[in-house]
C-alpha cells in the first residue's frame, strides 16, 4: 500500500511538499511541481505496436494492452498534457482541480482532496489511469486501482527537463508519440527563445517567489522546481536555504533583501499593496523600488505544456524590460491595486 519509492527518493524532498499540503486548497497544483525523484522514464515498446510496456516515473513497469481509449487523468498537469497531444477526446475522468483547457470541465471528476472515488473509476471502465506521484494521488489508491486490474502510470516531474520526459512518457502510453515529440520540440524552442532574451539582461536580481505568506512565509527550497524556474527566468532565487525546509523566517528574508518579489499567491488574493503594508517588509528593495509583481501561478507551477508560458511570465516579472511578445500575457491581476 506504500509507493514503490526508495528511501533516497523521499529523503531530501519529502518535506518540501508539506507546504503544499498546508496551502493545498490554494495551490494543489504546486505539489506536482516540487521535489526530485531519481527516475528517468524509458519506453520499452517505442514503436507503439500494442501491447506495450512503459516504465513510469516510480520505476514501475506498466503493461498497456491496446491503444487507450478511456483515459482517466488524476492531475491537472496530466489532463493538460493529454489535451495538448490531441487526445482530449479519449479522456473520461479528471480531478476536482482540472481547470484547463475549459473542455476538461466536462469530464467526470473522480478524485477529491481526500483521494480517488474508486466507484467512479470502476464505473468509467478506464483502460489507462494517469496518476500523479509524490503523494498527489494517494499511494493506497494507486495500489487499489492496480489491484482492480487497471494499468496505472504514475507521472511525476522533479525538475524542469523531467516535464519533457513526462510529456513523452504519456505520449508513448497513449500512442501519441509523434504529437509528444512535436509538443516538446516547440517547448524546447520556447525555452531557448526565453533563455536568449534573458541573456540580454545584464543583471540577475535577487528574486523571492512567494508561494504563500500566511501563517509562515513559504518559499522555494534550493534546487527545487520553482527555484529552477526562477533561475531560467533570469533571477537569483531567494530560497529557504535547506532542501528540507519549506518556509523562510522573516528575518532571513529581510537579510536576503529581494530586489524582486513575485507573488505566486496573487491568484489567491495577495496583491502588492498588501505586501507593502506587512510589518518588516517596507524596507526591502523590491518594496521600495515597486518591484512586487503578481503572476498567474498555474502555468509557472503546473508541470505541463503551458510551462514555457509560465516561464515567460516569470521572466517578464523579473525583467520588466523584456517583451517576449510571442507569449501570451497573464490575465489582468490585482486590478484594484
Amino acid at each position: 500500500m506504500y509507493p514503490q519509492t526508495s528511501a533516497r527518493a523521499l529523503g531530501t524532498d519529502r518535506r518540501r511538499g508539506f507546504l503544499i499540503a498546508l496551502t493545498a486548497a490554494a495551490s494543489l497544483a504546486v505539489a506536482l511541481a516540487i521535489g526530485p525523484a531519481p527516475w528517468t522514464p524509458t519506453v520499452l515498446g517505442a514503436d507503439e505496436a500494442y501491447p506495450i510496456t512503459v516504465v513510469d516515473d516510480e520505476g514501475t513497469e506498466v503493461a498497456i494492452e491496446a491503444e487507450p481509449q478511456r483515459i482517466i487523468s488524476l492531475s491537472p498537469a496530466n489532463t493538460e498534457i493529454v489535451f495538448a497531444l490531441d487526445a482530449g477526446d479519449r479522456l473520461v475522468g479528471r480531478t476536482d482541480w482540472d481547470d484547463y483547457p475549459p473542455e476538461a470541465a466536462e469530464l467526470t471528476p473522480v478524485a477529491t482532496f481526500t483521494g480517488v472515488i474508486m466507484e467512479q473509476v470502476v464505473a468509467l471502465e478506464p483502460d489507462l489511469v494517469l496518476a500523479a506521484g509524490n503523494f498527489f494521488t494517494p499511494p493506497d489508491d494507486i495500489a487499489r486501482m492496480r489491484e482492480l486490474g487497471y494499468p496505472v502510470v504514475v507521472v511525476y516531474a522533479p525538475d524542469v527537463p523531467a516535464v519533457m520526459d513526462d510529456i513523452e512518457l504519456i505520449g508513448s502510453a497513449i500512442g501519441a508519440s509523434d504529437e509528444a515529440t512535436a509538443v516538446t520540440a516547440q517547448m524546447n524552442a520556447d525555452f531557448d527563445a526565453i533563455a536568449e532574451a534573458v541573456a540580454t539582461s545584464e543583471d540577475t536580481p535577487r528574486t523571492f517567489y512567494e508561494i504563500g505568506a500566511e501563517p509562515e512565509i513559504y518559499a522555494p527550497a534550493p534546487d527545487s522546481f520553482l527555484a529552477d524556474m526562477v533561475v531560467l527566468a533570469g533571477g537569483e532565487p531567494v530560497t529557504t536555504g535547506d532542501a528540507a525546509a519549506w518556509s523562510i523566517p522573516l528575518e532571513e528574508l529581510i537579510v536576503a533583501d529581494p530586489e524582486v518579489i513575485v507573488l505566486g499567491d496573487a491568484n489567491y488574493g495577495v496583491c502588492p499593496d498588501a505586501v507593502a503594508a506587512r510589518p518588516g517588509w517596507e524596507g526591502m528593495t523590491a518594496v521600495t523600488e515597486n518591484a512586487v509583481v503578481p503572476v498567474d501561478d498555474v502555468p509557472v507551477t503546473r508541470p505541463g505544456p503551458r510551462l514555457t508560458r509560465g516561464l515567460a511570465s516569470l521572466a517578464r516579472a523579473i525583467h520588466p524590460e523584456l517583451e517576449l511578445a510571442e507569449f501570451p500575457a497573464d490575465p489582468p491581476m490585482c486590478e484594484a491595486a
Partner: protein
Amino acid sequence: MTTTDLARQHAPVRRGSLEALRRRPVVLGLAGLLVLAVAIVAGVGLGTVHISPSETIAILAHRLGWGAEETWAQSSETIVVTLRLPRVLTALIVGLGLSVAGVTFQGLLRNPLADPYILGTASGAALGAAIGVLIPIQIAWLGLGLVNILAFVGALAAIALVYRVAGGGGRSTMTSILLTGYAVGSMLAAGLSLAMYLSGSQLRQIFNYLLGSLAGSDWQSLLIGLPIVITGTVLILARARSLNGLLLGDDTALHLGVDVRRERAILLGLASLVTAAAVSLAGLIGFVGLVVPHVIRLIVGPNARVVLPLSAIFGGAFLIIADLGARMAGELPVGIITAVIGAPIFVMLLRRYRTGYQL
C-alpha cells in the same frame, strides 16, 4: 436494588411514544435490526455511481449462487462486490464496536463524556498510523498495511501504558486512570504533532486517517477485523451484569459480589481491543462511540444488558448511514457526517428527556 429499579424511580416526567419503548427493549431491538437491514441494503444499493436495485440484488444473488443470468456490466459487479459490500460491512463492525466500547468506557469511568478514545487510544492509534505513513517501506501482513497494524498496536500500547502508570491493578480509582489517560494522551498527541510536522507530502495521508474514512475498506482487512470486534463485543455482552454493578460505584459493586478489580481490568481490556480494531480499520471516526450509547440510554434507561446490544445494533446502522451520506456528498470525511447527523438527534432527545437521564 438493581439498576433497572433505580431507573424506574427516576423515570422521565414527560411521556411520549418513545417512552413506551423503554419497557419494551425487545421491540426496540427488532426495530433496530430492521433499520440495520435497511441501512445495509441502502449502503450496497446506493453510491456515487447509480446501479439499479434490481441489478444490485441480481448481482448479490449471483454471487451467492442463486442463478441469475449475468445481464449487468462487469463494472457494476466490481462496484457492488469489491467496493461497496466490504465497505458497508466494515462500517457495520466499526460502528458496532465503537458504540459497545463507548458504553463500556462510560460505565467503567462513570463519566458521561467518556468515549472509546478517552484513555489515550486515539492518540496512540494516530501516532502509530503516522509512523506507519512515514516509514518508507512497504510491509503487508495478511493484507494489512503498516498503517493499520501500527494503529492497532499504538492504541493498545497507549492504554496498556495508562493502565500501568495509573497502577490499574492496585488500589487506583477510575479517576486516576482517567487523568493518567489524559496525560498520556497529551504526550502522544505531541508526538503526533511532531510526526505531522516532519511528514511532508504524506501529511494528507495522516490527516485523512485523523478524520476517519471507510473509503479504503476491502475484504481482507474486514475479515481480520471482524473476529476481533465480534469476539470482544460478545465477551463484553457476557459481562453486562458486572458493568451494571460497577455503575453503582466500586463499594456497592463489591457488596453485590462483583470482583471489582478483575472485572474492571477485563472490561477495560476488551473495550480497548475492540476500539483498537475499529480505529485500525477506519481511522478516528468521532462521535459514534460517544453519542450512540447516550441516545440508547435516554430511551431505554441505564441497564447495560439492554444498552449494550441495542448500542451495537444502532451504532452499526448509524455508521452505515453516515458513510452512505459521506459517499453521496462526494467522499466527505465520515466523521463530519456522524457529527452533523448525530448532534441534532442527541440534542433533541436530551430536551425530550431533560429530567430523566442518568448514566
